């Protein structure tokens, strides 16, 4: 057990103790987000981008548009590919190299929120059926990890696709120049993440709460109180009622998040 592990154990005990008495380390309410900052177009050279900060967590989402072959089972549809690097800059626990399970889970949960909400009109991204479609390459770059990556990355991603403009396409060649045409995006999916510590449940976990949590649940919603993706994590469990209650809370908090877009 390294000294870092020990310090986390101590911190985790402290968090459990605090939570039992109904408090959070930074005095937030159980249903309160930390301050959120969203910078659309943070990478001006990219076709779409955003920086999102929730507390000290920072994620940049960037969109590249490339022409590729469609999948055989949807020959006239564009494609979304979401990648994620948990670069070692962002946390002492992250390592260089191919994505590990937490990075894969993050990319897939963000991807699912966007994909299942039908936010992007993929049928408008067909160039030539069976031959060529636009591929939306969404890359998540986590710069500073201070808890709640799912919600931060999803806000950055939705903001990035909303400000994405299409490149020129002439004579079968992509010209790397922006047009006035926007990526056809019709929904604004956001995700709300809750953690359960002991028998208390709170939204937007800080780093320490992420470490101390027994279980985690994330709901992705679009407007109109429709659930489009969900993911439970952690080695603890939720009751049926807890899942329904967190979903109800999600519909409330999502409206606040969606106002930022």
């Amino acid at each position, binding site marked *: 057990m390294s000294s870092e592990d020990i310090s986390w154990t101590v911190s985790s005990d402290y968090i459990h103790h605090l939570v039992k008495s109904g408090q959070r380390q930074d005095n937030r309410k159980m249903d309160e987000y930390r301050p959120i900052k969203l910078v659309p177009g943070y990478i001006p050279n990219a076709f779409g981008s955003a920086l999102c900060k929730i507390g000290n967590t920072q994620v940049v989402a960037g969109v590249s548009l490339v022409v590729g072959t469609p999948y055989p089972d949807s020959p006239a549809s564009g494609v979304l590919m979401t990648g994620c690097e948990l670069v070692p800059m962002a946390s002492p626990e992250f390592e260089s190299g191919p994505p590990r399970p*937490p990075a*894969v889970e993050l990319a897939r949960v963000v991807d699912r929120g966007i994909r*299942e909400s039908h936010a992007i009109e993929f049928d408008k991204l067909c160039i030539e059926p069976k031959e060529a479609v636009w591929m939306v390459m969404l890359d998540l770059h986590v710069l500073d990890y201070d808890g709640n990556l799912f919600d931060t990355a999803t806000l950055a991603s939705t903001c990035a696709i909303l400000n994405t403009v299409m490149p020129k396409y002439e004579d079968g060649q992509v010209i790397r120049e922006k047009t006035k045409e926007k990526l056809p995006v019709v929904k604004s999916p956001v995700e709300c993440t809750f953690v359960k510590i002991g028998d208390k449940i709170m939204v937007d976990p800080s780093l320490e709460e992420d470490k101390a949590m027994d279980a985690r*649940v994330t709901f992705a919603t679009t407007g109109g109180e429709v*659930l489009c993706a*969900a993911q439970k994590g952690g080695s603890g469990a939720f009751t049926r009622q807890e*899942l*329904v209650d967190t*979903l109800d809370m999600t*519909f409330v908090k999502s409206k606040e998040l969606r106002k930022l877009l």
Partner: protein
Amino acid sequence: MGGVSNVPLIKDGKRLDGRKPDELRDVRIEAGVLERADGSAYLEWGSNKVLAAVYGPQEVLPKHLSDPTKAVLTYRYNMAPFSVDDRKRPGPDRRSVEISKISAEALEKVVLLEQFPNTMIKVFVEVLQAEAGTRCAALTAASVALADAGIPMRDLVVACAAGKINDTVVLDLGKSEDNFGQADVPIAIVPHTGEIVLMQMDGDLTRDEYTQALDLAVKGSMQVYELQKDALKRRYGGVVDEQ
């Protein structure tokens, strides 16, 4: 999920394969099917065929992964190349990495890891034939293999999905229902407490549909739980200690 789709999947209250909305596909479980593994189980769920094996508790390699407070549980969900129509390239893809992660977390709730500090318990599941619902089939089989290996557990874990097709919430989506349906909600529970240890969802659901789906999936899980216990009884010829 395909969103609103015109493919008719329910007709006269029956689904394409003749099932009622709240009816499971056939499930068959056999415990103790492999020679080398410490515990194993074979499970057929509809056309799905999965095999689960457990090794351990054993030495942790590499050593620095060792935990002095409890056993480390690893889970490897793997699809055979021939298990799906389009040959799957060998090795883990992102989907199987994610399934492995959340399945390990689900089992950690019931396995008495703290009894075996500084050891490792490895769970391997091979999907030999895949036809919708393999993550639930795999986790259900893994749980039986853990029991077959004699690993102490608070309870079995059992998994089952519910979903939405043609605006109706139904149990245990089959392949075309998975392809053309509107939502899928795989869950896993601890049967004695009803606690939910795995839950994913994709598609679109209202609050009410979601609660219906949860309740239906719990109901299906409880049916599969009986089959898990039967398999262990057949294997050990007696009554399984339900603690």
